């Protein structure tokens, strides 16, 4: 892991092009992206607003099709997956964390965190049990019966992280996970992602504007205007890993 190009790629983007619209209003948003996302690392995707970050991760996790080019997911062409197979691939292998948390308001924290397992067909009781363990890991064991409306933004995002990891996905994709949070909650979330999410057999891909987040990444991909501008080595792995207690008690980032 000495150069930006070492490590096992989980995702390879091969000349990914994406257009939106038709005819006159046709707009090229991605101009041939060639980039890898590696296992065991936290990759940050940064760049100015509108440069195509969200579009790229949508293509990477199979929510959107590339107009040209291909994606290899664990060595398999994304083209071989379509329809139901693609949906099920997503369900099994990808965890999502969104800027707006996107929890189901009618479900408790534990039930929300259990959703990916329920989608995968696990019995509800077992799924919620596993979800409780995940909530424990993100420091919310005492909130498992609360509904999203009864939780702070930072807590909701931690529930979302528990949900994104509960089915042990191989790729975790986070779009602006800290953008809606205050400075402290944002750091708690990043610290959590660093300690809980990053694992040898998982790649974590985070889109962010937030300058404070840059220090957490192992690799930083900078995009501008639909192109990859540079790929750099980050210092995330050298960070002193803080205990969750420290995170919870607010001594993080001080």
């Amino acid at each position, binding site marked *: 892991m000495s150069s930006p190009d070492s490590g096992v790629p989980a995702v390879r983007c091969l000349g990914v092009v994406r257009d939106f619209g038709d005819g006159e209003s046709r707009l090229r948003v991605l101009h041939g992206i060639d980039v890898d996302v590696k296992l065991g690392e936290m990759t940050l995707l940064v760049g100015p607003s509108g440069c195509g970050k969200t579009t790229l991760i949508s293509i990477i996790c199979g929510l959107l099709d590339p107009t040209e080019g291909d994606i290899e997911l664990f060595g398999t062409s994304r083209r071989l997956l379509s329809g139901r197979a693609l949906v099920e*691939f997503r369900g099994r292998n990808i965890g*999502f964390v969104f800027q707006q948390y996107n929890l189901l*308001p009618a479900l408790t924290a534990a039930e929300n965190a259990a959703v990916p397992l329920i989608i995968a067909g696990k019995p509800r009781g077992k799924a919620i049990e596993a979800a409780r363990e995940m909530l424990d890991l993100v420091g919310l064991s005492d909130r498992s019966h609360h509904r999203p409306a009864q939780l702070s933004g930072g807590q909701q995002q931690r529930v979302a992280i528990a949900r994104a990891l509960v089915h042990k996905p191989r790729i975790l994709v986070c779009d602006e996970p800290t953008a809606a949070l205050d400075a402290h909650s944002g750091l708690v979330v990043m610290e959590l992602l660093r300690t809980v999410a990053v694992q040898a057999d998982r790649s974590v891909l985070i889109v962010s504007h937030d300058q404070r987040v840059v220090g957490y990444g192992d690799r930083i991909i900078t995009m501008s205007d639909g192109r990859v501008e540079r790929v750099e080595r980050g210092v995330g792995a050298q960070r002193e890993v803080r205990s969750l207690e420290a995170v919870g008690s607010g001594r993080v980032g001080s």
Partner: protein
Amino acid sequence: MNWIAWKMLTGDRAKYLGTIFGVAFGCLLISQQSAVFVSILRRTASQIVDVADADLWVIDPQTLSIDDLWALGDNTVLAVRGVEGVEWAVPFYKGMVTARQPSGHFRQAILLGLDDSSLVGAPRTMLMGKLADLRRPDAVILDKAGYRYLFPDEPMELWRTLEINDRRAVIVGICEASPPFQSLPILYTRFSLARDYAPKQRRELPVVLAKASPGVSTPELASRIETRTGLATLHRREFAWKTIQFYLRSTGIPINFGITIALGFIVGTAIAGQTFYLFTIENLKQFGNLKAMGTTNSRLLGMVLLQAAIVGGLGFGFGIGAAALEVFGLTAVSMAVIVFLASIMSAWRVLVLEPAEVFR
């Protein structure tokens, strides 16, 4: 996933009840409108249905409804009695008369003449007086609604008199009767007396009522009577249906009510369908989430349909509660169709949803 669908549906209690209320209200509108229509049509045949003892109505083949009876020959009763398998056959009169109130006002009324000896077709529920008193001179029995119409705001009492076609009529009883189409008083009297009360040109025999002997089937007897007398012989229900059809064909009821019912349907559909559609649209983001997280379209469709079935079922239950039972089937079918269409429309929105929208 069904559990999640259920939770999504009921999570917001107010929204859930609002959705059910919307469907129930739409359902009520539809069932109310059609119930009124059905009951009005039913009224056109109520004097037929009220004569429960007789199986068969022997009428002139040209007769189209009970309000348009053609005269039969005077010896028809005997002719029918002569048919093998007839237990009994009696004359029955139905006509319109003008009754003069003690105050001097004239009122239209329906006059029913019952066979003098058997009183077949007599009212089944007497509220005051005795049926047997109908055998007294000049005796008539008046229905309750008719009494209220002829003697408004006066206490119900017997032995009041009316004048019908210059003849005295004494009210010896007050009864229940199915409301007639025209909301007119119904006067029951003996057949012989009815012919005196009736206007001169209407003093014929319009109907013979007959009953089959034990062991003889009604359709069989009907065709025997038809062959022997050349007269139409209908079962009570057939004649009622013939009358209803006559009104459907020859009055403005179907058009006017068709419009009202259509409006009820449109408004009811709009309310019920819109409520459910909006419910799904409000939850579109949540469906999009589930889709991104790996829920297949068929599972999502199942979820929407389950929610529709719950809302539709409960809404129907509450909505039909207030409406008549006779339109149960009609309303049930319409509601099923409406909720199905609404859910297909909502489901469509869910199915075509771009999962990449979750990042927006």
